[in-house]
């Protein structure tokens, strides 16, 4: 993490021994020229102007470093390391559990995806409206996804056709786990239609 310097920025006040004594206009005593500061002896802690400034500089640098370190630490503190959220990658079953033409809604509540078997391809559509992030609903009777917030509509394949949404739904990475043959969905990897990523073999599973 950050290397925090703690510094006691103690810039001791000059006691005017080196500066000429301030003379008020009412003073009637003769002005005595200020004595030259004596050379610092081994015992003498004579404060010179230069010495004071260098100490002040050290103090300020230390103070700034400490504050900077604290602000950096605070910034890092606000980014949690452990999230209490559903895992981004999960298994949804075998390919035969998803018959052709069906939008499977079982995983929408917990994991936020629809598993759609459409036109020979099995895809995991992320159930987040690309307009402003509300969750659309699958309307079986009208054969479309419809967002309740602002009325965006998508075909079964996820392509947008009505409402304010600017782009289609996003696909999550979908693959067959080689160990047990189950379908593995990974939401951390997304495939966007408008970037031509729906041709990527990781974005669908071929089903007959």
């Amino acid at each position: 993490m950050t290397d925090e310097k703690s510094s006691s920025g103690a810039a001791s006040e000059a006691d005017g021994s080196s500066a000429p004594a301030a003379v008020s206009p009412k003073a009637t005593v003769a002005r005595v020229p200020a004595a030259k500061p004596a050379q610092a002896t081994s015992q003498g802690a004579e404060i010179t102007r230069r010495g004071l400034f260098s100490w002040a500089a050290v103090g300020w640098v230390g103070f700034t470093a400490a504050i900077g370190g604290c602000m950096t630490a605070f910034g890092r503190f606000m980014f949690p390391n452990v999230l209490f959220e559903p895992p981004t990658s999960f298994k949804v079953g075998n390919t035969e559990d998803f018959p052709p033409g069906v939008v499977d809604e079982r995983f929408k509540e917990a994991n936020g995806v629809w598993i759609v078997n459409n036109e020979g391809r099995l895809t995991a559509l992320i159930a987040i409206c690309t307009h402003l992030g509300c969750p659309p609903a699958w309307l079986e009777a009208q054969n479309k996804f419809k967002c309740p917030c602002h009325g965006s509509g998508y075909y079964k394949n996820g392509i947008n056709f009505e409402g304010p949404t600017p782009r289609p739904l996003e696909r999550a990475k979908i693959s067959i786990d080689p160990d047990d043959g189950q379908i593995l969905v990974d939401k951390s990897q997304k495939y966007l239609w408008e970037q031509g990523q729906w041709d990527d073999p990781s974005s669908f599973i071929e089903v007959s």
Partner: protein
Amino acid sequence: MQQLKDLQKAIVKSQIWKSIFRVGIPTDNRKRALATLGNVVLHLHPIKVKKSGLRMSYTWCMGGTSFFLFLVETITGLLLMFYYRPTVEYAYFDMVDLREVVAFGIMRELHRWAAHAMVIAVWLHMFRVFMTGSYKPPREFNWNVGVILLVLTLLLSFTGYLLPWDQLAIWAITVGSNMARATPLLGHEGPGAAFLTLGGEKLIHVGSDARFGLIAGRTIGGGTLIRFYVLHCLGIPFVAACLMAVHFWRVRKDGGISGPV
């Protein structure tokens, strides 16, 4: 009667009385000035008030109304904190209980209505100050303080919106915080964020960007709730109160409430 006078004398001469009021009953102008200067309550009141400053048609009393509503929010909000627990398990049901089983749970409604009223009042105050030209020198600095206070008022409104933890709250904050995705450089969908890489790894992604830091996760959840709760009850009110002190002090120092030119 004489006994009463003696009693009054004894009280006024007592050490306790003197320790609180510092100066005795003022008998000359100097003592009167000292009594005003040496007493926090009296020094809050201006020495002179312009006639125009008292005209409702000129001030609309919107600055004072905003401050009054802030005090209402502080008091009702403090009372709500005795019952409301900012966790996913309890938040919504505590809010419902305030409405249905808590004696004087109307505090919740008061808090909500006063919140709406405060946002309206602050906007109207800004409108009045603009239309009367009260932002002109020497008041330019105070206009800027006021703009920051307006932003803080809106942030208080936004953070408080999540606390009932119902569908409306969650989706409003979802939509609202999605704007942070588009932050330049710091939002994972914002301009320039794609260029921030370290050894081929993206530095700014959905789990590390400004939105993530704001809502403590990739989606709205328990982390967001407690974070917004702390900001709503402690962080933003503290900053707003400090700036309000500056704001009122500057009104006084800039010559009181501005009058018609």
